[in-house]
């Protein structure tokens, strides 16, 4: 095993299920035999605020937060939050994001417009960018609520972790009644 650390940042809006996704990632990395650390802020961010979760894995991980500008993969649950978080990513890093807009308060109030052309702006700085309609793909898999798992599948494809580790992590972290749909959603994302 090399000393290299892989840094993943999950970003979005409080209430989007970011913490569960980061827990599934962490579980899979542990099952694959890596050291893992994960960090995020609970509390105020749960009330619809911006959320950033850091997940790092490798032979030995020290800091629980990804050093600024060293993220390898940015996993975005909402497009404005994805764009906002680009400074966390290293040059040449990968962006996998859901094409979803959730208006922040100033936009809801009509004081500011929701920024336009964000996907184009992301691609201009980070050409390795996969933008997906998570909701639509999740609907295809059988449940619109499994959008996060589709995205997770797409992220998994960019990581060198064995299939069985993902399978076991999902089995452990997803409630049994929702497991089938989520496994299907995961495979759908993994095939993209």
């Amino acid at each position, binding site marked *: 095993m090399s000393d290299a650390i892989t840094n993943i940042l999950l970003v979005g*809006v*409080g209430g989007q299920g970011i913490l569960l996704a980061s*827990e599934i990632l*962490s*579980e899979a990395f*542990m099952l694959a035999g890596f*050291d*893992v*650390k*994960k*960090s*995020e*802020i*609970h*509390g*105020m*961010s*749960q*009330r*619809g*605020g*911006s959320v950033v979760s850091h997940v790092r894995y490798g032979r030995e*991980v*020290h*800091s*629980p*937060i990804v*050093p*600024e*500008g*060293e993220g390898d993969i940015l996993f975005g649950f909402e497009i*404005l*939050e994805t*764009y*906002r978080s*680009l*400074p*966390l*990513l*290293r*040059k040449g890093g990968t962006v996998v994001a859901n094409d979803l807009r959730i*208006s*922040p*308060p*100033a*936009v*809801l*109030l*009509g004081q*500011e*417009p*929701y*920024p336009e052309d964000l996907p184009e*702006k992301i691609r201009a*700085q*980070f050409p390795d960018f996969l933008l997906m309609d998570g909701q639509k793909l999740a609907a295809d898999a059988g449940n619109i609520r499994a959008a996060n798992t589709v995205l997770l599948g797409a992220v998994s494809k960019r990581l060198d972790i064995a299939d069985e580790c993902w399978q076991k992590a999902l089995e452990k972290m997803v409630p049994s009644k929702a497991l089938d749909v989520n496994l299907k959603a995961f495979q759908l994302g993994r095939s993209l």
Partner: protein
Amino acid sequence: MKEILSGNEAIARGAFEAGVKVASAYPGTPSTEILENIVNYKEIDSSWAPNEKVALEVAIGASFGGGRAIACMKHVGVNVAADPLFTLSYTGVGGGLVLVVADDPEMHSSQDEQDSRNYARFAKVPMLEPADSQECKDFTRLAFELSEQFDTPVMLRSCTRISHGKSIVALGEPVTGLPTPKLVKNPAKLVMLPGNARVRHPLVEERTVKLGEYGSSAPINRIEMRDTSIGVITAGVSYHYVREVLPQASVLKLGMVYPLPMELIWEFAAKVKTLYVVEELDPFIEEQVKAAGIAVTGKEIISRCGELTPGRLRKAFGIPGAAQATVEKLPGRPPNMCPGCPHRGVFFSLNQLKAYVTGDIGCYTLGFMPPLNAMDTCVCMGASISNASGIVRVLSDDEKKKVVAVIGDSTFLHTGVNSLMEMAYNRAPATVVILDNRITAMTGRQDNPASGWTLMDDQTTGVDLVQLCTALGIRNVRVVDPLDLAQTRAVLQEEMNRPEPSVIITNRPCVLVKRDGVFQKGLVLSVDQDHCTGCKACLKLGCPAIEWQPAPDGKKGKAFIDPQLCNGCDVCRQLCKFDAIGRVQ
């Protein structure tokens, strides 16, 4: 067996492995999940206390009875629990006692970023500081052993990045063979009258010396020799930032941050060329090292404010960081009250009535945010009522009428009751609104003494807030439906005008309460686009379900309600003068 645990989960596991009998806490970010996980170990009597002082006193009682006990709180909770803590230092313990304190550098969810290590020194009790989840578990176990070995309470200090960070933990088996708790009379040790306390104090001072000696040989404090040109003394999460940013540096990693192992520090200082202390917040270690006459650099390069990050540490040591992408200024995304939150209409009304609002700690502190803009002060738990009681004493009769204190049910029971007692006793003519949403919402929906349920999910007696306020001497206690705007506003106006103390209690539950039947979603609302005139009255509520939709062709825009988000509280419908908002069947 290995698991990925958060620091809080690992502390709970450590308490279980240490054979803890009693656990008590008041919720507070980032400490809350410790008790929420301890309760999963059915062997432990786990409970929420009304406040941190009571939580610590419950733990002290269990310890005096011979059982191991743990009390958990956030940093500011120790301010409330400080009174028993300082005396507990003198009495020592029966069964081991551990006080867990979770600090919040950077104030992710707090009103200040006080450094709890100062309490360890102030109260003369040892403090351990874990650097990851494995140490959270192991140090919790060790803390109980040290507590009994040295006859002292032990503080375990976490911080947001430790409590809410996750890492891999190798689990252990629970201890066996702990003595069975029983009553043992020992008044000379446990009755802190001056005569007894004078005997105990020298023992406390001796204990601190012995703990310092222990620390110089204990494995939790360790020297890691690498390149000798730079030596860093550090502890807690900062240790991992040092390892990340200065991988070649020699490190003295402290697991016990009070008392300091001075012998070990001398030894380390002699081995390295330049010595640094890397610590968040106060120069706690640094000042003691400097006081010993050892040359060291610390706060000259590292801020006393905020948390450390690898980037900030790099900057401190002049190491260039990675190149970062830049983005323009974007609309921020601060937290907001939920759609259908019963607090929203109250703050809207207070804004309309131009009230001067003394605030308190909870979700409702978000009443400060635009467009509600209806909070003028917020100091600490319980302060809203006493601040209002004080402010009316200096105002003209006309201005007195504007003063309204707002406080949640859990915060009221935490430390607001004493404040209301004072207000009634001294007849201060302010209005108090108790925003009773049946839960401790901000920290993640914990039960409290008014909710009727315990942490262990047993049904119990709930405090009757109306009777309590009446018993305290408030003659005017009114209950309002906060989702009825006209009623809420009228009652607020009446009580603000009344030249004597009064209490208004709102009666709608938090929309996030999980218990069946407590919160009932109303019929979802929608905007009739033909009737909407674009007057923006409904937007003044700042509800996340209501969005302004600008018209593309320069015409006036209209409001839109997201049916996925709307909880059907009906408040926006009451505000619409054009009957454009209706319930969807």
